[in-house]
């Protein structure tokens, strides 16, 4: 059913070459990261004193760092961490947000009230600041960054699902179906899924970009992901030290990797929204 709902999406996307490009870029990066061991021209930790701080050249397309490590290889390997955490955080937030949202929507009353007050409190923090505080509290690790980002994202899905449930409850056919004897949960899923799925897909796509940015910013300021898991944000931070001596490639390319990935996710998310959001349909 979900697949069927998405097939027009696919048709729409295919017409939008920009989104295709974005999708291809993400696929390329994901594939390269997954197969980093085979794809990357060098091992990420291979040092070469003779080629230290080399400008981008034919052997090292994106140059090398102070140890002569190949920047391109390190960026590709870093993609593993970046994309995994972004995907993991988004998935975790989606699952928890939707489940709790269903609970809030179904039980209403006091349960809903408590849940929504918690949501309000979480949303009272700018997301990045909260992610920062949570990471600081839990300690630096990939898992903790993932959890921190997920927590800041949960309210989005929760509210989305909850309002969708409230909307369905209001609808007459839901009443009719109840009279016919469909159990409440079945009813929910029959009606909820097709209605709530599109906005959740849009939200999830955009959240991938957000998660990448947050994670990069966290490790840029020294929180979050620590080497040996090289990560684009911390690589940018390392590279920043070499601006003064003119080794621009060290900060530029890891940052560019972030920009390209986030841009791709946002472009896809935007196209999906244009298509899936009925208010925007046919605008262009």
């Amino acid at each position: 059913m979900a697949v069927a709902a998405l097939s027009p999406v696919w048709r729409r996307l295919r017409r939008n070459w920009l989104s295709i490009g974005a999708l291809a870029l993400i696929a390329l990066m994901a594939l390269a990261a997954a197969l980093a061991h085979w794809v990357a021209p060098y091992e990420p930790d291979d040092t070469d004193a003779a080629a230290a701080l080399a400008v981008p050249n034919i052997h090292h397309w994106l140059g090398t760092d102070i140890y002569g490590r190949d920047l391109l290889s390190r960026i590709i390997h870093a993609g593993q961490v970046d994309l995994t955490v972004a995907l993991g955080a988004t998935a975790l937030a989606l699952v928890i947000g939707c489940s709790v949202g269903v609970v809030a929507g179904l039980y209403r009353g006091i349960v809903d009230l408590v849940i929504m007050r918690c949501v309000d409190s979480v949303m009272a923090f700018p997301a990045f600041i909260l992610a920062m505080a949570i990471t600081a509290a839990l300690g630096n690790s990939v898992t903790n960054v993932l959890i921190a980002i997920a927590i800041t994202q949960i309210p989005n899905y929760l509210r989305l699902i909850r309002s969708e449930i409230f909307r369905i409850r209001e609808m007459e056919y839901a009443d009719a179906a109840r009279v016919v004897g469909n159990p409440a949960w079945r009813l929910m899923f029959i009606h909820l899924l097709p209605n709530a799925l599109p906005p959740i897909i849009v939200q999830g796509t955009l959240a991938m970009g957000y998660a990448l940015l947050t994670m990069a910013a966290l490790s840029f300021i020294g929180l979050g992901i620590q080497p040996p898991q090289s990560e684009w944000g911390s690589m940018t931070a390392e590279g920043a030290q070499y601006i003064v001596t003119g080794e621009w490639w060290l900060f530029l390319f890891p940052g560019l990797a972030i920009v390209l990935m986030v841009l791709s996710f946002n472009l896809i998310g935007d196209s999906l929204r244009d298509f899936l959001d009925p208010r925007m349909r046919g605008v262009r």
Partner: protein
Amino acid sequence: MAFLAYFLRRLSLVIPTLVGVTFITFTLTYVLPGNPAVVKAGPLVSPEVVKELEKQMGLDQPAWVQYGRYIGGILHGDLGESSSTGRPVLEDFKQRLPATLELTLASLLIAMALGVPLGVQSAVHRDTAIDHIGRIVGVAGVAMPTFWTGLLALYVFFYLLGVAPAPLGRLGPGIEPPHAITRLYVVDSLLTGNWRALGSALHQLMLPSLTLGLSVMAPIARMVRSTMLEILESDYIKAAWAAGIPRRRVIYGDALANAMIPVITILGIVFGFLMAGNAVVESVFAWPGIGNYAIVALMTKDSGPIQSFVLFVALLYVTVNFVIDLLYGLIDPRIRLE
């Protein structure tokens, strides 16, 4: 009277949120690794000194007692102490807040000054080159991490072109701060006619505020564009066109005025972005504000400043959104009068 009711209704929603906020910040501190007593005492003291301090700081009490103390402290303006400056956090905050405010306001100004016209033009010239450029700028602006844009700006404008000053705080070397009135250097130097300080303050402010401003320009432009599109299709704008109201007046008067109401509501969100961006941008440009303070504290596991920063930002964020809600009520006659 109607407005008072509106005010009270809004306020009643804010208070539970605030309680929730303090609860979250307390919980985060409670699980924050590192013994605050050890941090306070320094690494080179004997265990009994640490024990003494723990008792003094109430760390041996149960969690709920500590929470009570925490709330009491907040209400008395006691946010704890920074181990790296040895001063009460509140005092450090007071010293650094003007820097952050100056940067935030400048960025907001830049974001509005660029974002609003861009959004208006994109809407008015929908689906033309301007709109497409605006869209690209918007999407790209959101996708670029502020630390990276900041570094890029530094590299290009400071290291390569030399038109920007070294990223070393609010004033160039050798420039005395203007007489303190608001403690926003740009404002104070204007008020006191201190042109040398004004020039230096603006020069120093240039790159960080542009970096931060551009990062939040996109959502503003986007919001302005979409509300403008909606409003340009509205009956009263059509009526205004038909009534022969001059074009500029219709777009920048009638339409924009109405579009600004929803835009004001997203200023709250924009403010959140700015506070988050502040922390990162301040650290890139060595800007002596509270964001930089918090990041240094994170590095040194200085729990007082971290939790206070998080709490402070949340309180500020809630307050700003509350004020925006009120503002919304004041501006829109439909709410003000009903």
